[in-house]
């Protein structure tokens, strides 16, 4: 299925969860936060949250800022 991750189109296996996506995208990062279609997906629900075709997902990590 096609979803958008951090602004770019991505082909994911059907039934992929947020946890799957995070594992794929965020190696080397902890304290990651995820939004799906603008809403926060709490860490505790990542494994149970299946993505749907067309979802727009943001996978975010800490960085320096003022």
């Amino acid at each position, binding site marked *: 299925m096609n979803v958008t991750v951090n*602004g770019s189109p991505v082909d994911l296996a059907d039934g992929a969860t947020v946890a799957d996506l995070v594992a794929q995208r965020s190696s*080397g990062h902890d304290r990651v936060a995820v939004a799906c279609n603008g809403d926060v997906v709490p860490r505790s629900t990542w494994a149970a949250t299946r993505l749907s075709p067309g979802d727009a997902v943001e996978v*975010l990590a800490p960085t*320096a*800022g*003022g």
Partner: protein
Amino acid sequence: MQKDPLAPHHSQARSGPLQGGQLTDELVPALAAEEAGDPFTLAGETFTSRLVLGTGGLPSMESLERVVRASGTQLVTVALRRVEAVAGNSMMQVLDRCGVRLLPNTAGCRTAREAVRTAELAREAFETDWVKLEVIGDEQTLLPDAVELLDAAEQLVLKGFQVFAYTTDDPVLGRRLADAGCAAVMPLGSPIGSGLGIRNPHSIALLRDAVSVPVVLDAGIGTASDAALAMELGCDAVLLASAVTRARDPERMALAMRQAVEGGRLARGAGRIPRRFHAQESTAMAGRPEL
């Protein structure tokens, strides 16, 4: 022999490279003692350092650690960005090692909706309900959008956040933000990263007088005297980033800011002399010889 606590410590002054966070205590024990006895509270947490440090703009994580330690800060701002755009865990390892508390920001947000969602993501990532609320209304000046800011502040307070609101130096807006339940009001001295200092000191003093929550001067600091002025005007703390991180020697400037904040705080408590139009002699005229 009793040491004069106010005597300068020139004999300990040094010009070599700075080494770690103990330096200020060695240099100025009187100030350090005063600082330790003058804690303040933000959102229920007590701090002895009144310098809040933004982390953006440094070339390396090694320099971040040196700057954090030299500044003596106990609270630093951080941000969230897409994973591809940021470089792994090293920043969080540095900040964890320094033992500082984190204040996530909503930098780059243009609307209340965006800022609220960013704050919620930051709460998830950093496991803190503290947020530096920044809602920008103009690309050139990065000035806050008052309408969106107040809207976002009200929403976030209802959601249980401790809101540190980055705002203009308008005392009325400051009061509205405090009334909305913000944990602190953070007026700018001048635009973010401009280094123009505090353009309207009287507004900052009026804002300080208008609210009972902590006031943190945020944005526009260019050099140490600006930070000292903020404290002399009655601010509870100073938040700065670029003035240190983009200085030629960030570590040295971090120490300068630390001492400026301490000095400004001391001066505020000591009570400055009134301004006079003409001179007032400080050497007695009585007993002057006729020559």
